[in-house]
């Protein structure tokens, strides 16, 4: 017991502001294609393992919901026109949170106390481990009035990780049904946000979360770092503005 107390005293408080964690130089965030002297050679498009890059005319567009932040497009652009920034605040609102009136109503109901149910529908588990880290002392999710609950019946938000597998389809649909309205769904990570990580013609995979249920928040990343998840949660709750 004494040792426990000593340890608690010695460690002190380690909780930090949600986006205080350092962004290291090597961190691979938002992909930024520079326009201009693009040769339209298609090297980046061919290099992208998830088909996240599209050419429209002579400009290049990156679909960050699908991006797995591998850096191949940057590495393989012969003219060095692609860059990867340290920006991880990439969450986007969708579904119900796009309509102002509905959004206000949902925020009024859920904005100060949000209960979350995690739902792994076919993830590699890195996204899930990051959700776990949110509950640790460094991020201390509960301080925002947000907590994970054991049953979908107690949940306001489903945080879905992974591509929807054939074998988890029923679990996803039943969990969604069991969650009382108003309910929100967050697609966490490239898998849930796009469903493309393991190919688009795959007998075992149905697609992203929104192939089966309506999604209200998309959080890109592979996996999204905890700060990116917090950004998504706080954005959905209207506690912060879009960066």
């Amino acid at each position, binding site marked *: 017991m004494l*040792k*426990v107390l*000593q*340890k608690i005293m*010695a*460690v002190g408080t*380690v909780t930090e502001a949600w986006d205080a*964690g*350092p962004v*290291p*130089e*090597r*961190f*691979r965030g938002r992909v930024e294609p520079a326009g201009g002297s693009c040769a339209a050679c298609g090297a980046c498009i061919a290099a992208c*393992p*998830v088909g996240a890059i599209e050419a429209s005319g002579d400009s290049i567009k990156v679909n960050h919901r699908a991006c*797995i*932040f*591998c850096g191949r497009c940057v590495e393989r652009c012969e003219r060095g026109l692609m860059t990867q920034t340290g920006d991880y605040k990439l969450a986007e609102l969708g579904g119900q949170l796009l309509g102002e009136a509905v959004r206000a109503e949902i925020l009024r109901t859920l904005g100060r106390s949000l209960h979350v149910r*995690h*739902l*792994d*529908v*076919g*993830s*590699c*588990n*890195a*996204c*899930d*481990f*990051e*959700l*776990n*880290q949110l*509950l*640790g*002392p*460094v991020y201390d999710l509960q301080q925002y009035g947000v907590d*994970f609950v*054991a049953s*979908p019946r107690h949940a306001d938000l489903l945080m879905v990780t*992974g591509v929807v*597998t*054939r*074998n*988890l389809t*029923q*679990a996803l649909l039943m*969990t969604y049904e069991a969650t009382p309205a108003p309910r929100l769904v967050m697609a966490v990570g490239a898998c849930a946000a796009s469903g493309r*990580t*393991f*190919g688009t*013609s*795959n*007998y*075992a995979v149905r697609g992203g979360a929104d192939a089966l249920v309506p999604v209200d928040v998309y959080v890109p990343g*592979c*996996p999204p*770092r905890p700060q990116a998840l917090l950004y998504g949660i706080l954005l959905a709750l209207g506690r912060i503005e879009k960066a």
Partner: protein
Amino acid sequence: MDKTFVVKGSNLRAAANACASRSRQGLLAMFACDERAMSGCYAVYCLFDGRQPGGLVTVKGLVPADGPLEFPSLTPIIPAAAWYEREICDMFGLTPVGHPELRPLVLHENWPAGLYPLRKDFDPGRVVPDAGKPFPMLHAHGEGVFEVPVGPIHAGIIEPGHFRFSQAGESILRLDAKLFFTHRGIEKAVEGLTPDAAFPMVERICGVCGVSHALSFSQALEGLTGTVVPERAKWIRVLAAELERLYNHVGDIGNLSAGMGFQVAVSNGSRLKEGLLRLNEALTGNRYLRGMVVPGGVAMDVTAELRGEIAAALERFEPDFASLVGLMRDNDAFLDRVDTTGIVPFAAARDLGVVGVAARASGVDWDMRRDKPYGGYDELEFAVPVHRSGDVAARLWVRVDEVPQTVRLIRQALERIAAAGPELAAKVPPAPAWSTGAGWSESARGANLHWLMMGEDNKIWRYFARSASYPNWPALSVAAPGNIIPDFPLINKSFELCYACLDR
């Protein structure tokens, strides 16, 4: 070194038996391959570890496509074959005749009968209608016996799996698990891709064994293309693999306490793990070390500055970790829960081919880094801690004892990196058509073994990934009976089995 015996499918059991009795570790993996285009046969491969550390012994049984699609089951003589054979039956429609418990494994009740996704004539893009077959589970019978079904969606942030406990009061009589909920068809998805295109999926089989999977795949490919990894890359790989072990072990040691509500240990484990994940991110740009290991070498250098950062982080880590372990070591309330809970006896661990921490906690003195060395481990100094009690405590103490060894390996890797030349990766030439090769590495959970057959134009023909969790999952059904249900979370956590790794 490597030996392959090609036999008729009908002789598979006899041939496998002969190899098993002459190998040190028994059956390492078993899988099938659709080789009708080449030989008119399906092939069933059984991989054994040989007598020498380096080599593998392969028994390849040919099942002619125009004959009965069956082979004699190995399970009655090699229990470790049980799940592999169920998977082969699901994915290829080859029946292991005499299998004591043949039922589906990978494909659930939603999958129609008679469709085999790993056959070459199965088009992965086709729309497969939903079926409503039964999925048989194992039960126990008797007066007062009842069942507790749990999952696939659990109460915490845990991967999905369905458990069926047959109970006599509080005591677990039998545990059956239905898994493969996160089956993502990765082995099929990479067929027809170049190794380069397949690689991001390989790295994403599992989040927390990503380095190990990337390594096993790369080593298989490097073996069959004759690629020699540059010195610097070799040591950077060791560094990445050991950092992966370190954050996993630290997280798992802390998290074990979550199974008994010892929150101080959970929080400190989580805090220490967070520090290590941040170190990973500084090193590779990804908290799970993704993007570092690539076929041919590594993608990023470890500069003097980063080496300094890692060394300093280890200095801070060691006393902090030691005091966390101190909270558990002489804490009777804690020890009471972990000692003699969830025992896997030595014989069961051997028979099931259990690997990694779980094996070494049951007295199986086996570690791929030492016993089938790869990637430079034979040049480094480290000990392999072994415990014998096979309980939750033993699995915990194996991890605890491995941590200083891992730190030792990281320090050696840092020194070697400093002394090595600058080259980071060798170019990997196209693989010869129809060449096959295996690669392995010891992840935090045990051996990950990958097998590759390359087709024409440097395209993957067949890829098989056997993760450490594959042989370890059945051990959970050995450990649980006789314990009470409230101890199950603890037992489960002590194995730290990976669903994503298993399900692929």
